[in-house]
């Protein structure tokens, strides 16, 4: 297992190198001009002289390969450069904003699992009855509703109409509930539907039938055989959900004035603030890869067939 983890972590190095190259050159292929964005944001007329000065200030006056090498050399030393707009070190800013996003994403993950598992179990146990139809309808809604729209609707209802929760801002749980729910809604709906399907599938398996024939109590059959096996695809999906939840925070943070890294990245994208976009992309790559690794480990722990299989082949 340790060798597996080390191998996966080693793979991260060429992956990050590839991602760094792709993001660096794709950004510059887009035809956008950060020097122009910088001057317009500063209300400075973009004369040739002003553009040349801005390009020099932002380090854009050198050939592209040279810019890449300079940037990469700095990145290896964990220096991600300075934001074009705020003129502050990018890594400091991203690390400043990241905890808020992780806080929000964690609560969203908690909501996703905490709500989807009971819902999925309920639907599976009440197959083709009204709870099942409700959950299936909800899943349909969940994948169709964009999270930013849901965010606005939640604010309208809970903040403007009922005045139960603050509409925006950074703070305790009361500030987190609405944005976390807006982010989590899609994932929890998908998860509930997935669990329902996989539990129904497990119910038809021979080991469940044999367990029942052995006279094992229905409660134990449900929990030890159906639910445990049904949960395996949910764990796999959770790995992807973490990505979705962090991705979802990109837009939702802007709506709720949540000072996270998503909102920071969105404004960087509209300002063509390359150092931030590059750093953000690399950071997200690391987070995705590490989360998926954790899920793989969890998967092996949960399903002996995977664990024993890999040990047998080792």
């Amino acid at each position: 297992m340790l060798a597996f983890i080390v191998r996966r972590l080693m793979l991260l190095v060429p992956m990050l190198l590839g991602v760094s190259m792709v993001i660096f050159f794709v950004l510059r292929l887009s035809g956008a001009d950060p020097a122009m964005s910088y001057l317009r944001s500063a209300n400075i007329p973009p004369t040739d002289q002003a553009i040349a000065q801005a390009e020099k200030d932002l380090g854009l006056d050198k050939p592209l390969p040279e810019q890449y090498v300079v940037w990469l050399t700095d990145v290896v030393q964990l220096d991600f450069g300075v934001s074009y707009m705020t003129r502050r070190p990018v890594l400091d800013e991203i690390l400043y904003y990241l905890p808020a996003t992780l806080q929000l994403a964690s609560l969203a993950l908690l909501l996703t699992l905490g709500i989807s598992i009971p819902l999925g179990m309920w639907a599976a146990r009440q197959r083709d009855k009204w709870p099942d139809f409700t959950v299936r309808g909800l899943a349909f809604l969940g994948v169709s509703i964009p999270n930013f729209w849901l965010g606005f609707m939640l604010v309208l209802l809970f903040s403007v109409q009922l005045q139960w929760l603050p509409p925006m801002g950074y703070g305790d749980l009361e500030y987190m509930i609405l944005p976390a729910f807006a982010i989590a809604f899609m994932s929890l709906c998908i998860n509930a539907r997935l669990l329902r399907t996989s539990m129904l599938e497990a119910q038809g398996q021979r080991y469940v039938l044999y367990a029942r024939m052995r006279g094992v109590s229905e409660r134990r059959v449900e929990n030890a055989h159906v639910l445990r096996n049904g949960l395996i695809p949910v764990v796999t999906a959770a790995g992807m959900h973490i990505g979705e939840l962090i991705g979802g925070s990109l837009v939702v943070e802007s709506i709720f004035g949540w000072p996270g890294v998503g909102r920071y990245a969105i404004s960087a994208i509209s300002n063509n603030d390359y150092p931030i976009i590059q750093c953000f992309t690399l950071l997200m790559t690391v987070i995705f890869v590490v989360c998926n690794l954790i899920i793989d480990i969890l998967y092996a722990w949960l399903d002996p067939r995977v664990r024993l299989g890999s040990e047998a082949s080792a």
Partner: protein
Amino acid sequence: MRLLSLAFAAMISFPAWSANSINFSWSVNAGPLNPHQTNPNQMYAQAMVYEPLVRYARGGKVTPWLAEKWQISADGKQYTFFLREDVRFSNGEQFDAAAVKANFDQVLANIKKHSWLGLIKQLDRIEVVDQFVVRLHMKNAYYPTLQELTLVRPVRFMAPSAMPDEGHTGNGIKQPVGTGPWMRQESVLGQKDVFVRNPYYWGEKPAFEQVNVPVIPDPNARALAFESGTINLIYGFEGQISPDTFNRFRHDPRFSTDLSEPLSTRVLAMNTNQSPTRELAVRQAINHAVNREAIAQGIFYGTEEAAPSLFARNVPYADLDLPAYDYSLQKAAELLESAGWKVLKGDQYRQKNGQALNVELVYYGHDANQKAIAEVIQANLKQVGINIALAAEERSRFYKRQKNGEFDIIFNNTWGAPYDPHAFVSGMRTPSHADYEAQLGLKQKSDIDHWITQVLKSQDDSERQTLYSSILTTLHEQAVYLPVTYLRVPGVAKKELGPLKMGATVFDIPFESFKPE
């Protein structure tokens, strides 16, 4: 439900701002509040903390502020300012001629950054005449000197003790210390800025103790924060509030709303240097065929008014009787017909000598208002047989196309008070704006540039008026521009802030003038 709601509300309590505060919002933090720098310093906040020598009042009048009076030498090269003697910085330091000179010297030490501004380009040196008299020596006469001294940056004044010990303010300041009615108490990155009253303020103290400015990037989220009471003021140009939301709030008795006088113009520039907008008849026909009133009412709910000319009449030197291009599809069709653009049988669009009447209109893709206007123009012009192709661009590419003349028609708003008209027309001479490229095909281009150069150094008001009349009349007759509406800054406040007051420029938000009822 009501009981449940009350119980829930009692269980939780979200921190409200102090009752005696203005709760505004902005899309980003106010920045380090360096008076001599641009990004990431936000102009609304710089204007709260730092003050100018003279101030821009409605209609373009320049009024005394930190300078009580001034004298301009006959050759227009020396400006002598007599400063108020009762002004202190927010740290108690005296504001005097030495402080004025120290600030100008900091700006001049970083002149590369500011040389686009006529005032800085023409400034030779600063002389301290006595403790409260300071003189600006100019290289050449430059009449908009006073107008540009009203700008929010780069020549407002910070305490010399807060300037860096080495280098210049271009590399940062120790702390933001100004003479303005407010000073910053707290700034939390990504969350908020808090301003409190300056205890040493020389003028009337603001009625409110505090201005809280949470960071809210999204205009719809801002509207919801306003409705739910998190903020009590929305004020500012595009991006602060959408026309739909403003219109909704205007009809809500709980809120007071107001609009500033016209402060700039939504206008499109037409390229006289490439076909088919190269032809005067086509440009005039386009001006006749666009229904400005429908745009003002339909898209902006009457919060902006239809613009018959490049500048509104309240802009200095722009109160001219220019014959409007009234909305008439018939006139537009006649102009096109007489210029040889005909609709062949079965065709929807006109053509001449085998060339179709295709015109590309470029807009900034993220600007919902520009998109809506572009679509109306497209529909209007279709009625007279002009085929408009819409091209949405990312922001920097949009401005690049303006600068490089890669357009038939492109959005190109005027810069607004206090830049209009002098800085806007000044920019027409350099290849950095759509105006220069749009005008290149005019045979009068060299005359226009010459008049602009003359007007900027003219010391005689009536001569300036004559020159401005020539410039604006020529541009109007040549139909280089398609003015659409005059922009007004919208403001919405909760009743607790008292009557809403609107500022005289795009950048000043008069927080100090709010008084609770």
